[in-house]
């Protein structure tokens, strides 16, 4: 063996023979200069290292030699690397400062206007399950949101009314894509519901003002629903209810899942047993069919599709004030279809991309006495956006949207038709600036154009949040919000321009150990509201001439921890609103904006009965209306609205729920307004009829059974 070879062999060996030891020591400080315990200090690529002690100090030995990288890591902080030279002996690196890393977990979020129901995020006011178990909601998303601050219950309508705004001022989105006619069609004071089942969604983001530049076409509020991700198991869900029934089946695999469901309801049998205040010729009935499918993509993205089609109708007699007999016969048939698909994924370079398309089609066939009316509305929405994280402190969102809207009103027997088509294009951008994990500014701009009204506009928006302590924060939001008038106005005057609202919101949010307190003050100014001559049935001279305001304060308190097995929330909203709109010649308090709104929801779990008892009480100080026997507009107010609802959910087995609920248990005769005769009678008096409730109470009984045959269940059963 040659000497050179032996030398070479030893050189190789020497690579893992420790020759010298170097001791490295120092102190770890946080961004405020405070000693930071628990940091992980190491020589990069080796096992040598240690943990900083309670006073941030560290010291360890390494056998590495030469230039090495000293790496310090700690959850919530950015990693720090520094080059050292190990030559034996001791190295004192002195103070090393770690900068905090702003993550989803520690970053302050903006609460102004926002009310969130989610299992994933922390600063939320509701969990998705709360929506289903709120007694007055009867399983309707809107019903549950009506127990939250900033909303008013309008019992003969059922839709969402936010802070002095009418129902059309709430924009509803599923996975960011617009939903046209999200509520069932309604006639003659029969309240409606959201078409979509709450079980479809994993999260609900409900904003009562000051929302993101991502959302437009909404003067008052945005309701953004996000659909569930991949279902994990195959299962069947059977529901049998006092008003109908349905079946839903989910097929799932590792990467994708699909759920198909069909439901049928008919209030006929129920209404033949329980007397109704309304004079139904044919009670409400309907069917729906829905398919939702999810596919998981590599890198954590999703591909989702949702399709729903439904049909239904009702027929009833609406009494006419001052006229004997059953009144006017009104018949409604509704056909509705909604479909959407969206894709989202993470790209390289810290980009997150989203793209999607939705389509809604709604057809109402109405028979009013002998007059046949057919209203058809179609909306196509295409949207794409990208989010770029420049660092943990700055992120940008850029989006582009296109809306195509077709609407027509026809009188088939008279062969008359009027319609409009509109194309709208929007571009928006929004920037988040984190100055620290406790302080964030958000600036946004949304620009839009409409080819029908030949209008171009831009809405600037800004918001800010500051974390005061671990449990509390303040937020502010301000911005401009534009919305094209509703379809039945635009079809009469295609030149109508946007109505505009300006929001200013201040919010305080506190959350600690199962208790949430939220207080919010707001001011909203309205411009260019649509006014017309005549009345709702016969409008003319539509113009953007109205204006007004809404201001107020709302308070929310929820406590899940003080009383064992009990969860309750209390809401009070004060709204002072006046506006000139519709046929009003002066600024009036709208009928849908009661001044004082209160609700209390209590849920109590009785463990040994496997039951949850629900209680909800909603009240307001009454609805304004115009009494033509008196001077002025909106000169009267109904008595206070009150509704006490109870529910009982019994879970005898994990896969079986029996739910019994009753609204307005006390049978209070709520009145939402009055209708008056067109002309005074012989005594010179306009005769009135109250617009009341469909029935004093609504009773609901449902049995929900989940059947699953998947591997998990089999494994459970085999063991």
């Amino acid at each position, binding site marked *: 063996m040659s000497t050179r070879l032996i030398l070479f062999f030893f050189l190789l060996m020497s690579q893992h023979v420790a020759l010298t030891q170097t001791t490295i020591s120092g102190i770890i400080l946080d961004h405020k200069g405070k000693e930071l315990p628990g940091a992980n200090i190491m020589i990069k690529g080796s096992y040598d290292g240690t943990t900083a002690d309670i006073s941030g100090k560290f010291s360890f030995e390494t056998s590495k030699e030469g230039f090495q990288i000293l790496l310090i890591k700690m959850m919530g902080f950015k990693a720090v690397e520094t080059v050292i030279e190990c030559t034996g002996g001791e190295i004192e690196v002195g103070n090393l400062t770690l900068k905090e890393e702003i993550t989803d*977990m520690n970053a302050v979020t903006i609460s102004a206007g926002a009310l969130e129901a989610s299992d994933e995020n922390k600063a939320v006011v509701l969990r998705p399950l709360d929506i289903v178990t709120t007694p007055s909601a009867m399983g309707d998303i809107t019903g549950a949101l009506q127990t939250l601050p900033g909303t008013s219950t309008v019992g003969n309508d059922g839709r969402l009314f936010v802070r002095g705004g009418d129902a059309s001022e709430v924009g509803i989105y599923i996975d960011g894509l617009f939903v046209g006619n999200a509520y069932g069609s309604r006639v003659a004071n029969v309240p409606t519901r959201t078409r979509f089942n709450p079980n479809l969604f994993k999260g609900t983001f409900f904003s009562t003002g000051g929302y993101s530049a991502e959302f437009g076409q909404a003067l008052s509020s945005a309701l953004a629903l996000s659909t569930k991700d991949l279902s994990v198991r195959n299962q069947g869900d059977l529901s049998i209810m006092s008003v109908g029934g349905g079946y839903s089946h989910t097929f799932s695999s590792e990467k994708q899942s699909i759920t198909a469901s069909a439901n049928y309801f008919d209030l006929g049998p129920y209404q033949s047993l329980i007397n109704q205040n309304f004079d139904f010729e044919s009670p409400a009935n309907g069917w729906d069919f829905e398919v939702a499918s999810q596919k998981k993509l590599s890198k954590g993205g999703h591909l989702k599709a949702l399709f729903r089609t439904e049909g239904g109708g009702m027929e009833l007699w609406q009494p006419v004030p001052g006229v004997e007999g059953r009144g006017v016969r009104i018949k409604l048939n509704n056909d509705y279809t909604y479909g959407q698909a969206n894709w989202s994924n993470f790209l390289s370079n810290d980009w997150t991309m989203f793209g999607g398309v939705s389509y809604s089609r709604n057809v109402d066939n109405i028979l009013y006495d002998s007059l046949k009316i057919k209203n058809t509305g179609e909306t196509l929405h295409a949207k794409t956006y990208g989010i770029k994280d420049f660092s943990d402190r700055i992120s940008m969102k850029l989006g582009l949207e296109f809306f195509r809207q077709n609407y027509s009103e026809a009188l088939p027997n008279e062969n008359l038709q009027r319609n409009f088509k509109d194309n709208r294009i929007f571009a928006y951008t929004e920037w988040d600036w984190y100055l620290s994990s406790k302080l964030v500014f958000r600036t946004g701009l949304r620009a839009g154009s409409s080819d029908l009204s030949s209008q171009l506009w831009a809405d600037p928006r800004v918001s800010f949040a500051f974390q005061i302590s671990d449990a509390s924060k303040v937020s502010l939001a301000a911005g401009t919000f534009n919305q094209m008038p509703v379809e039945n106005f635009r079809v009469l005057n295609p030149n109508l321009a946007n109505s505009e609202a300006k929001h200013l919101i201040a919010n305080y949010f506190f959350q600690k150990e199962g208790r949430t307190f939220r207080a919010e003050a707001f001011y909203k100014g309205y411009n260019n509201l649509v006014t017309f001559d005549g009345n709702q049935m016969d409008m003319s001279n539509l113009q953007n001439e109205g204006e007004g305001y809404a201001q107020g304060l709302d308070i929310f308190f929820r406590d899940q921890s003080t009383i064992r097995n009990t969860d309750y929330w209390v809401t009070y909203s004060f709204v002072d609103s006046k506006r000139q709109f519709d046929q009003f010649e002066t600024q009036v308090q709208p009928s849908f904006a009661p001044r004082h709104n209160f609700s209390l929801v209590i849920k109590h779990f009785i463990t040994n009965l496997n039951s949850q008892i629900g209680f909800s009480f909603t009240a307001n100080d009454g609805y304004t209306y115009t009494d033509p026997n008196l001077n002025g507009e909106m000169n009267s107010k109904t008595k206070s609205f009150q509704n006490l609802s109870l529910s009982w959910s019994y879970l005898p087995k994990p896969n079986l729920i029996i739910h019994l609920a009753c609204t307005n248990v006390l049978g209070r005769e709520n009145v939402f307004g009055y209708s008056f005769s067109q002309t005074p009678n012989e005594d010179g008096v306009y005769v009135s009829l109250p617009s009341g409730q469909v029935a004093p109470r609504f009773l609901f009984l449902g049995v929900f059974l989940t059947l699953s045959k998947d591997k*998990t269940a089999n494994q*459970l059963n085999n063991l």
Partner: protein
Amino acid sequence: MKNLTLILVLAFMSSLTALASEYEEAMKAQIQKMNNISSDAEAQDVKNGFLRIAQANMSEWLPMYYAALVQTEAGLRFDVDKDAYFEEAQSYLKILQDAGASNSEITALEGYIMMGMVSVDPGSRGQSMSGPTMETFGKAIGQDRSNPRAVYLMAQMERGIAQFFGQGTEKACGMFKMSLDLFEKEKEKIDENYLLPSWGYEQAKQMYESCN
């Protein structure tokens, strides 16, 4: 020339073995420490040790797995911000999963963390999270039917749900028994160089004993 090749190969192999055994020794020492944790400070130190091994051995799943396990158990045992601990543990599993690692032990630990999260606030989280937790354990069993931890953890969740619904715990107890049988089989494989997860036997035994 033959000799040269032989020496080179031997030298190379010896350096490889040295590296490999360095990893094994470090892991063994950490696992030893892990089994003797009695405070959160010790837990953080052991977790950091595993994380150091992980950063030096990117292709191994065990160091990161143990870091997540230590953090999970610290969250369960000590008076700390439990959600933050569980979220940190989840973030370590996510690093593994993003790198394509998937096995019964990782999935079982994922379910264990979810179970810990439910225990923080069973009233409001139980209803929405216990289903997915059970499914995760089911998936872990599906990946390896001989994993005693997956069966033991599922049994514990099953017991919690049965107690919640006022039902008998027979099924859970049967599962505890089954996990004990699997633990016994696993024991045959364990020697002083065993690095794979082998925790859970004592807890499962205690649970099973409380059945009778």
